[in-house]
């Protein structure tokens, strides 16, 4: 293919060619950054909580008033829930993963430490907690009923007899891997607390992108407390496989049968909780996908429009070339090469633009650095888009009859 005639033709249509190239560059820059964000948000919304999500449901309960027998009521509710047909186990806690509300505590290795060694999300629970969440105990032991005492609201500052931590938290506190049996100090209370067990994984309650929990996502601990509180709290119910929807109906009904002096704000499966917690991330993914598709479509139509115009403008020249012996293929190739040159220039500028856009977002929004493979994929997409868009006008050009050269003027 001869580039010279193409380039000299383009020089007479500078503005059009530049317009297409710049469009492609901006499209590329936006597209690969958008794809990058999409990929991150999808990964974010798929992080596991550590619980057996398919078979667990949450009931958010709050007592009316501050009943003096709240502790007994809590145990009554739990006994009834555990006895319900289809239920494997249940326990009560202050917060659950993906709820967006809960408590954090700084943990220290020494008593008079200035900056905490690790931050940990705080879950209260009894000896049923591990089974009711469906967690995996990987070291040490579970609580036994002797470990568990009542905690009367957050203002009750008694220290736990021992704690169960996640593997991530254990490794952060004791990188040597010998966390069980070691002790830590809580920032907000006195005395040391031994680590008695380690669970494989338990996510913190805060899951939004860049939010409070983003820096210690899998760093949680369970303290052996029955949370007796005027605050709303959760019953976590682990159902037998296939019984989730039955229990979703029967559990709150059972609780209201026991007492109506309560508010059950919501009863939801972990699957529903996940959809709710990541709604904005999913929404952002959808919006960015639609914008990307629209960008590609607009750019493609722009190429079709301008190339068609060039074809119309050059009808006579094309006729003459055909009459002088150029094949249809040669005409199609001419327009394809022309587009490749324009798109190539656009892609080169676009990759630079994409990287600088990302760098700016890294600064302004604490985003991650763009993986360069995204820019390359974007460049290939833009080049292919150009080739596809130019095909129709090029075929139209190829169908111009050679006889045209003899007819007009």
């Amino acid at each position, binding site marked *: 293919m001869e580039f010279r005639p193409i380039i000299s033709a383009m020089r007479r249509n500078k*503005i*059009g060619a530049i*317009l297409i190239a*710049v*469009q492609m560059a*901006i*499209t590329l*820059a*936006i597209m690969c*950054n958008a794809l990058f964000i999409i990929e991150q948000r999808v990964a974010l919304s798929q992080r596991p909580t550590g619980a057996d999500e398919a078979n667990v449901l949450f009931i958010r309960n*709050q*007592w*009316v*008033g501050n009943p003096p027998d709240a502790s007994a009521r809590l145990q009554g509710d739990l006994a009834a829930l555990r006895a319900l047909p289809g239920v494997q186990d249940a326990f009560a806690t202050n917060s659950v993963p993906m709820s967006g509300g809960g408590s954090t505590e700084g943990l220290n290795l020494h008593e008079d430490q200035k900056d*905490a060694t690790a931050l940990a999300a705080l879950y209260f629970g009894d000896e049923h907690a591990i089974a009711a969440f469906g967690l995996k105990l990987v070291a040490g032991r579970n609580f036994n009923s002797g470990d568990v005492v009542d905690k009367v*609201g957050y*203002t*009750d*500052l*008694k220290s736990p007899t021992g704690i169960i931590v996640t593997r991530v938290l254990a490794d952060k506190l004791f990188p040597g891997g010998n966390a069980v049996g070691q002790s830590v100090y809580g*920032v*907000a*209370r006195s005395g040391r607390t031994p680590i008695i067990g380690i669970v494989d994984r338990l996510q913190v309650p805060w899951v939004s992108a*860049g939010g409070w929990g983003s820096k210690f996502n899998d760093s949680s601990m369970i303290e052996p407390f029955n949370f007796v*509180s*005027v*605050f*709303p709290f959760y019953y976590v119910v682990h159902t037998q496989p296939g019984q989730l929807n039955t229990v979703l109906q029967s559990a709150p009904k059972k609780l209201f049968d026991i007492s*109506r*002096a*309560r*508010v*059950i*704000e919501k009863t939801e499966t972990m699957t529903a909780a996940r959809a709710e917690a990541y*709604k*904005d991330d*999913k*929404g*952002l993914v*959808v*919006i*960015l996908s639609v*914008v990307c598709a*629209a*960008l590609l479509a*607009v*750019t493609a*139509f*722009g190429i079709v*429009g*301008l190339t068609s*115009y060039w074809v*119309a*403008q050059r009808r006579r020249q094309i006729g003459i070339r055909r009459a002088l012996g150029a094949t249809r293929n040669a005409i199609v190739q001419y327009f394809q090469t022309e587009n490749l040159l324009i798109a190539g220039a656009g892609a080169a500028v676009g990759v630079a633009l994409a990287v600088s*856009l990302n760098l700016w*977002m890294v600064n*302004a*929004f*604490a985003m991650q650095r763009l993986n360069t493979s995204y820019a390359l994929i974007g460049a290939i997409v833009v080049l292919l888009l150009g080739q596809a868009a130019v095909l129709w006008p090029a075929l139209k050009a190829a169908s111009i009859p050679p006889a045209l050269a003899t007819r007009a*003027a």
Partner: protein
Amino acid sequence: MFTYYFRLGLRSLRRNTVLTGLMIAAIAVGIGACMTALTVFRAMSGDPIPQKSHQLYAPQIDNWGPDKHTGGAPDRLEPQLSYTDVLGLMKAHAAKRQTGMYASLQSLRPADARQKPSKVFVRAAFTDFFPMFDVPFKYGGPWSASDDAARAAVVVLTRDMNDKLFGGANSVGKTIRLDNEPYTVSGVLDDWRLLPRFYDLAIRPFGDGDAIFMPFTRAIDKHMANTGSTQCNGDIETGWEGRLKSDCIWLQFWVELPTAMDVRAYRAFLNNYAAEQQNLGRFHWPPHTQLRDVTQWLQYRNIVPSEVRILILVSCGFLLVCLMNAMGLMLAKIMGRAGDIGVRRALGASRRAIFAQCLIETGVVGLAGGLFGLLLTALGLWAARSLLTKEFVALAHLDWADTGIAVLLAVGATVLAGLYPTWRAAHVQPAWQLKAQ
């Protein structure tokens, strides 16, 4: 002349419907995307209380010491105050009006015993809250300062809450039951919506909020637990009294300072207060205080999610692509009509006349694109509201300002994009075009 060009413009647009359609579609899609993001941004970053945003101030006091704010704001201050400091500032009464406050989730007993209790957000505040924030009343009014002092069991209901509990009737003097205790209604609010709810940004600043208001002193008396954020540092004693004595921060505090002189005086007062605490031995560091008005506060707390800013950036880039697209198509269209223009020039039309005609034509395209773009914006906002939570898209609705911005943006941008093609049209050589025919 204008109407003639306008008609000519319409006629020429009709002549090549595919190209015209593509141009209008490109502009409409670009405007739609850009305006959706801008409308959301405007709704989220708007001034919630324009008449008073420079008279209401949130004081901050460092009650933890300079090296205890790890991970917080770079100014080493926290957004809330401790009970001790709120009590101190309320007692000093150094501003025209002031109120400490917090939110508590309480259960509401319905009058009809067969109905289940429900949960409501109760805001505990002082009576100054209502005049400070220009809260409108439908029935009755705020409780009195003596109710504050007496820890009286009185409440103010929002209009929605009153509709729910009393069917919208005047409920002043009636009783409601909150957590098993009776409260007398002293007033019912009229429609009142602050977006964002600047006075307490910890709880869903754009979502549904406070439904019932009661005296702060009463809520403290009844040990009503804080539903917002509580941050503790240092030694705490157990129980409610321990929480009140502690340096845990969990309360919001706002003051009304009408003049610049009041602001200066209050700054000095805050510093004196902190110095006094230092003298008393409570603070072991020099005074570190701050005073921010509503506008500065919203900026400081950075409440517009970065995703909204990213969407603005993406959609503006998209609009740019759409405009360049339209520019290319316009160029094609106008140059396709070079023959026409040549004839008109030969018949005596001046360059200016050709220029004006083409400019009006592009203006018409921009107007049409803007109108369709408005439709797409409405569609985009609907989609955004169904795809995202309220914390992302607030209650974004198209208002007249948005409509104006959309049309102006569309026409302005299109005409700007059309300048070069128009200029090219005006420089068509009549002789050359006539010869070629």
